[in-house]
């Protein structure tokens, strides 16, 4: 596909800018053409009209003369040549020339007195305007004038017009295409920015050139709108985080008080048991608060702040070493083929957190006897971490929701957890611009973490939410 200025030809032709350009060219060309046709028609009418009138006049004039003077008049006219451009001929009723410089009756001439275009009888290249009539005594009178000059002028007109109009149309076409490309590029730039805004990067702004056309004014308005929107969104996000933050201190002091009371009554008593239970409850609340704050923390983490190259294979080996006993203790087989080295760039501690969350889920939701697998797939610079289990899996309709805060599927309500693990994973993936896909393992599920920047396009958590009204179905890319 040929490319021009970064656009494919087909896209260009479909673009609005291009259509405006070509429409403009068509209108310009059409009006030029119409003007020419009018001019051409009008000028040839005027030229022929003058000629025809003189022919008609001559015919009338001669026909009105006494018949016996005609031969003399015509022959004496001929002596004034070459000043006279009109040719006159008198013929016997059966078409034999009596006098005059018309050698023969032109073929196809209707002898009704009207002026007609005919071939000159002597030279086949020459055109005449001629009129003929039958006189009262039966003889035939023909008057003719050469039309070659007029035809010549007309041909010149057409040639001139072609030389002017065709380049004009071509020029306007080229202009149209150029305007089209320029407009299209600008629109494209704008829609790319808009796309990023939809993907959750509310800090993006539409490009405003220094000009003051409609598009610039529109961009400025949209930008003002985005600013308001960003303010509101930041405020909204902050509310939840602030609540979580403000809950921490009171919860901590409640816990401390409970601990003290527990010591006073002693753990053996009935009161002690219920206090211990309350402490567990407070701990749960505290851990939810911490997890929420952790999600917020990663969301607001500066990208690349702590990014360093490290070996993903080593991270997986350590994770496997830590979690294999946990899986086995639960009666699950743990599969982990020794991985190769796979250097990636990222925040190691945070990525470990994501992988640990996936493995933890796989072990937690898979009932024994079952299998949990941790694999390093992909090649070279595109390593993929796979976490696979033989558990109940995740229904296609829920594959998007599991990445939301607090989502827990009905089937897993009995398991411990608060539904924050995967939202944390999603934030971590977004922070690195990696991608995560969730598929079926029949039975079980398969999480695939693609560990290279841009693995899933400009991905953020909000993209999942922005897409939530699209059709459900595997695999889900964030």
């Amino acid at each position, binding site marked *: 596909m040929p490319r021009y200025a970064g656009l494919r030809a087909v896209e260009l032709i479909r673009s609005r800018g291009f259509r405006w350009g070509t429409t403009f060219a068509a209108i310009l060309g059409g009006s030029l053409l119409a003007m020419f046709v009018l001019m051409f028609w009008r000028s040839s009418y005027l030229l022929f009209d003058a000629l025809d009138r003189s022919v008609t006049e001559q015919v009338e004039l001669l026909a009105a003369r006494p018949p016996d003077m005609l031969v003399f008049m015509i022959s004496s006219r001929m002596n004034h040549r070459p000043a006279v451009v009109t040719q006159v001929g008198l013929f016997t009723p059966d078409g034999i020339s009596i006098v005059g410089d018309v050698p023969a009756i032109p073929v196809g001439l209707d002898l009704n007195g009207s002026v007609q275009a005919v071939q000159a009888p002597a030279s086949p290249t020459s055109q005449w305007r001629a009129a003929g009539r039958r006189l009262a005594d039966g003889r035939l009178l023909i008057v003719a004038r050469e039309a070659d000059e007029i035809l010549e002028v007309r041909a010149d007109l057409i040639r001139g017009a072609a030389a002017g109009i065709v380049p004009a149309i071509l020029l306007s076409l080229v202009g149209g295409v150029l305007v089209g490309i320029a407009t299209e590029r600008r629109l494209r730039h704008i829609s790319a920015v808009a796309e990023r805004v939809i993907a959750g990067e509310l800090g993006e702004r539409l490009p405003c050139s220094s000009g003051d056309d409609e598009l610039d004014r529109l961009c400025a308005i949209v930008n003002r709108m985005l600013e308001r929107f960003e303010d509101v969104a930041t405020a909204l996000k902050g509310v939840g985080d602030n609540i979580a*933050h403000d809950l*921490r*201190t009171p*919860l*901590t*002091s409640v*816990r*401390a008080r409970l*601990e*003290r009371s527990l*010591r006073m009554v002693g*753990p053996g008593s009935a009161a002690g048991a219920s206090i*211990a239970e309350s*402490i567990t409850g407070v*701990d749960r609340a*505290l*851990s939810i*608060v*911490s*997890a929420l*704050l*952790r999600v917020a*923390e990663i969301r607001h*983490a500066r990208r690349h*702040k*702590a990014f360093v190259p490290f070996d993903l294979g080593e991270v997986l080996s*350590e994770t496997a*070493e*830590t*979690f294999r*006993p*946990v899986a086995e*203790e639960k009666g699950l087989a743990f599969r982990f083929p020794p991985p190769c080295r796979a250097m990636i760039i990222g925040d190691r*501690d*945070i990525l*470990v*957190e994501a992988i*640990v969350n996936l493995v*933890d889920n796989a*072990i*937690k939701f898979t009932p024994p006897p079952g299998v949990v697998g941790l694999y390093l797939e992909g090649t070279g610079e595109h390593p993929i971490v796979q976490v696979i289990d033989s558990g109940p899996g995740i229904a296609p309709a829920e594959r998007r929701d599991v990445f939301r805060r607090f989502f827990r599927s009905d089937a897993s309500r009995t398991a*411990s*957890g608060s539904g924050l693990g995967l939202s944390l994973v999603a934030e971590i993936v977004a922070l690195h611009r990696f991608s995560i896909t969730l598929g079926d393992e029949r039975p079980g599920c398969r999480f695939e973490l693609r560990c290279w920047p841009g693995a899933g396009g400009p991905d953020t958590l909000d993209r999942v939410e922005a897409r939530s009204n699209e059709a459900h179905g595997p695999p889900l890319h964030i």
Partner: protein
Amino acid sequence: MATILVIEDDPETASEIRAELVRCGFTVGCAADGPGGLSQAVDGRWDAIVLDRMLPGLDGLELVRQLRTRNVTVPTLLLSALGQVSDRITGLRAGADDYLVKPFALGELMARLEVLLRRPSGGTQTRLHVGPLELDLIARRASRGGRTLDLLAREFQLLEYLMRRDGMPVTRKMLLEDVFGYKFEIRTNLVDVHIGRLRRKLDAPGEPPLLLTLRGEGFILSAPQ
């Protein structure tokens, strides 16, 4: 008994920590802001200092840094509401000996303080002994009363960590952070699983248990009396 300085500007948190320390038999001094804390901290009568990271007047990090430049080597424990891994690292780099993110259980604070006060046995030793337990760090061999223990790498690390802190409570959080390298909160039983496996290897049938679970707090490894 040891003397502890608590530098904390939030009165409620300060009084809670103080109450718990007093209950455990420590002598406690208090300061509520940075400069006040620093002037008390330098006078050399403290066995450990617990300080908040964000303090009015002089922040906790800077306070620790100033202590270190004045060659005050008293162990310090930074408390912080900030949880980022990098904050923890800057805290430790500034010279703090440990770092605890709020909110924390008081038991956690006490366990860490105890470790700080007793400064775990130096890293230069190549053999560790606790009762009948022996750990050869070079040959990477563990044994109990001459019986070789067949430990996985993680279990070896775990045992080494516990043996360096014998007789001191070690919390799950400490193990998660220091042995497993997880600087984040994680809600699984993975520490208990590893401890359970280690314990089964340590104690042959009939032998007295060496590794005990402390209710709600963590674990303690100690030689049987």
